[in-house]
């Protein structure tokens, strides 16, 4: 079924009306565009994981393993005994409804099961109905129900309609975090062999090849060579990019989206120009060539598996510390999980900027620094030669990516950078930015093409805020610090707010940096003419 037009998509969305039927009596309808395809069995076999063979979510009967019920209940019991977060969140919700209209999927679909409270209730009801004597006794009166095959389908449908963005947890008076419930429930489904293809293929690639896209070492080198050629054409400066260099001071790990596709590649060029400009002694690795982590969207164990490479590589290359690119859930994993998994990281040194001498005390234990922290520090110390007028063709607003905001709190650094490299920076309405920011609608492994309708619905609140500033201030660029954002926003913008381009923060840094020995810049990193230089591009002055 084709995607409805923007004006039609929201016609049946009513945020203040509930269905007639009790939610326990409504089964999910697997309508095309609202669910992702099931994982190919080979992918799971390659990773030694259970699977259900060939099947699709829209199949009437799912090939669940014969002991599916026992397996599911055991998996739930196991998580209740290992995650205080999960156990507590199952116990203390009072259904006050403060979270109800905070979820982007609810705002874009009006489906009550997309209210975080009800998403949690989908599991809470089964835990009460299967494990609690009182729940068994009072049944629906206590919000309890028995586990059925239809509930497994329902879980699949709705836990893959949550992007683990944590917006609800900001508003919950007890801090109940639906992301935590979704993480656990995707793990539970994984134990039955249920997973989605789009989130699992990158895991296999990353495990075997080193990055989500499956770019092999020689290809990565070629890509970088191409980008370096582009930089030379635009700036007149040929720069060197160290790859797999032993003894470098810093290991730089970017998300693969940044060297794979438009518009990520412009951001990557921005990184390279910055490093060249300050003469950073760094290296990129072809083995640890992915900072993002699709494992996190499936199972914590898979997440741990993928990032172990980064530390082995840091050890092998004998670097002093690690610098990470712009990426969303990646930074949740790097910030909140890394040193629990891989620590103590005693073979690295406390990160210190070789240019400004700033010691990153906030990263003294796991020795990893966000590139926006690094660049903000450089700008604050006046170490960059910047010409913000080179971004005068850009009116930019900043999208706080969910996880860097709500799992890390990097709010000021990117804004500080943007204000220094651009002359036209405006904010979106305050209820849609910073800790209240909205997800792109496609995070946590849901950026699949077959999921387009749900992506447009989930991304609607963000797009709507962009539309507001586009009309008000003529915004034409949406900057973000997340590779998935950069991958999915172009489609979202085309759908809801045509005319807005998507870029990383460091793309704009790259435009503004004045390199030693450069020629007169007439084009930005996308070969678009700079303001006042129209018609001059390619002339070489």
């Amino acid at each position, binding site marked *: 079924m084709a995607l409805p037009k923007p004006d039609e998509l929201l016609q049946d969305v009513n*945020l203040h009306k509930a269905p007639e039927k009790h939610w326990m009596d409504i089964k999910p309808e697997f309508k095309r565009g609202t669910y992702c395809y099931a994982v190919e069995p080979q992918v799971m076999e390659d990773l030694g994981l259970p699977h259900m063979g060939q099947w699709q979510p829209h199949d009437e009967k799912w090939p669940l393993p014969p002991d599916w019920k026992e397996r599911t209940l055991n998996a739930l019991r196991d998580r*209740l005994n290992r*995650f*205080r*977060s999960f156990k507590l969140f199952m*116990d*203390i919700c009072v*259904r*006050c*409804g*403060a979270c*109800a*209209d*905070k979820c982007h999927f609810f705002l874009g679909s009006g489906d*009550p099961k997309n*209210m975080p*409270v009800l998403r949690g209730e989908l599991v809470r009801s089964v835990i009460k109905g299967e494990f609690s004597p009182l729940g068994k006794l*009072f049944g629906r*009166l*206590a919000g309890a129900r028995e586990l059925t095959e239809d509930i497994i389908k329902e879980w699949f449908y709705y836990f893959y309609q949550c992007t683990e963005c944590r917006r609800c*947890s*900001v*508003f919950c*008076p*007890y*801090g109940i*975090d639906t992301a*935590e419930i979704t993480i656990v429930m995707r793990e539970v489904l994984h134990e039955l062999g249920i997973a989605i293809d789009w989130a699992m293929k990158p895991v296999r690639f990353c495990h*075997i090849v080193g990055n989500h896209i499956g770019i092999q*070492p*020689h290809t990565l*080198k070629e890509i970088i060579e191409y980008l370096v050629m582009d930089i030379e054409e635009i700036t007149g400066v040929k720069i060197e990019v160290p*790859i797999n260099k032993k003894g470098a001071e810093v290991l730089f790990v970017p998300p693969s989206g940044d060297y794979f596709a438009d518009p990520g590649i412009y951001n990557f060029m921005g990184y390279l120009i910055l490093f060249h400009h300050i003469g950073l002694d760094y290296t990129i690795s072809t*083995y640890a060539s992915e900072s993002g982590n699709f494992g996190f969207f499936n199972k914590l164990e898979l997440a741990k*598996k993928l990032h172990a*490479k980064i530390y*082995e590589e840091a050890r*092998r290359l004998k670097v002093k510390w690690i610098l990470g690119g712009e990426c969303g859930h990646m930074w949740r994993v790097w910030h*909140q999980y890394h*040193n*629990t*998994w891989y*620590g*103590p990281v005693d073979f690295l040194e406390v990160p210190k900027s070789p240019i400004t001498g*700033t010691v990153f005390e*906030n*990263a003294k*234990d*796991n020795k*990893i620094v966000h590139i926006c922290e690094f660049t*903000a520090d450089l700008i604050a110390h006046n170490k960059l030669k910047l010409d913000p007028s080179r971004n005068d063709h850009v009116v930019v607003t900043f999208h706080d990516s969910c996880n860097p905001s709500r799992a890390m*709190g*990097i*709010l*000021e*650094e990117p804004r500080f950078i943007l204000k220094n490299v651009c002359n036209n920076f405006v904010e979106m309405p305050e*209820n849609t930015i*910073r800790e209240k920011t909205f997800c792109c609608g496609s995070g946590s492994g849901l950026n699949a093409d077959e999921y387009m309708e749900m992506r447009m619905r989930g991304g609607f609140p963000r797009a*709507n*805020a962009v539309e507001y500033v586009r009309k008000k201030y003529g915004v034409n660029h949406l900057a973000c610090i997340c590779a998935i954002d950069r991958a999915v926003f172009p489609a979202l913008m085309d759908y809801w707010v045509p005319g807005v381009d998507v870029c990383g923060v460091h793309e704009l840094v790259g435009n503004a940096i004045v390199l030693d020995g450069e020629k007169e810049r007439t084009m930005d990193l996308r070969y678009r003419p700079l303001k006042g230089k129209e018609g001059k591009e390619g002339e070489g002055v």
Partner: protein
Amino acid sequence: MNVGVSLLAVIALILIPWIGVSALGLDSFFGIVIPYLAFFVFFIGLIYRIVQWARVPQPFKIPSVCGQEKSLPWIKYSRLESPANTWEVVLRMFFEVVFFRSLFRNLRADLQGRRLIYGSAKWLWFGAILFHWGFFIVLIRHLRLFLYHVPSILNYIDYVDSFFQIGFPPIYITDLMILGGLLFLLLRRLVDAKVSYISHASDYFPLFLILGIVISGILMRHVYKVDVYGVKELAIGLATLHPAMPKDAHIGTIFFVHLFLVCTLAAYFPFSKLVHMVGVFFSPTRNLPNDNRMRRYVNPWDYPVKYHTFCEWQEHFKEQLQQAGFELDEEWCKGQNVAKENKAA
């Protein structure tokens, strides 16, 4: 259905002591046995729940960060929303528990055509504050029934609480607060389509139950006067573990209804959503600092996970690496092998 069942349940709970005391004369059963039983269940139940939560480890440090992180020294960070140490976490928890800070953030979203509009929505916060603070002060006021000599602080609270001196005995402000809060919370649950849709009978039941307690309490003070000295004698007897029904006192059936509903609430408390009162202290998204990169957090059940090592990877991509002109790192792999052998030995 949910509303009706809950209301019926509370009415039944009112009738039980009513019949028990006025028709069957079971004063000591409802005055002594039931209160002891209920508070035994309350304490044991609550301890059980706390132990259950405390026993389950929190594997990761996962604060919900709602403000600027502590990073570069010239960037002001949010001590309350992104606490960087234990003291700041205590502050954050204090504001959360005492003033419901997260609830204060509440917004309302409306869809108008193709535009999403967000408005402030502090009513839920206000209703919750009225109810919880009202309840808390009423509870403190009740302490005077358990103490021979009433400390002056209690008299002072009493004085402030009845400051307006409306009626005789004067109406307590907190009585109005708790009543107003409860009615608001109930009405909201009934009227708001979203909240009504997510409500179980177990969400209405405590509201009706507490409403029953409040109304019976107010009736006792203002309409059906009870023998307060008799009540105090009974209360002190219970508190000092020398329980006895006061002689020659006519306490009044309404008191037993009030007491029985309180006992029901106490016994129900640990096994219901009402444990959020204790649970909130355990919430890992609120009670942990956002200092992950500064201080390592240890997961007690962490286990090693097999990953694709550099040497396996190099072996796999040997040709491509050589083709692209990368040097192979045999030395590292030799070292790794030696390390492995040493470990095995």
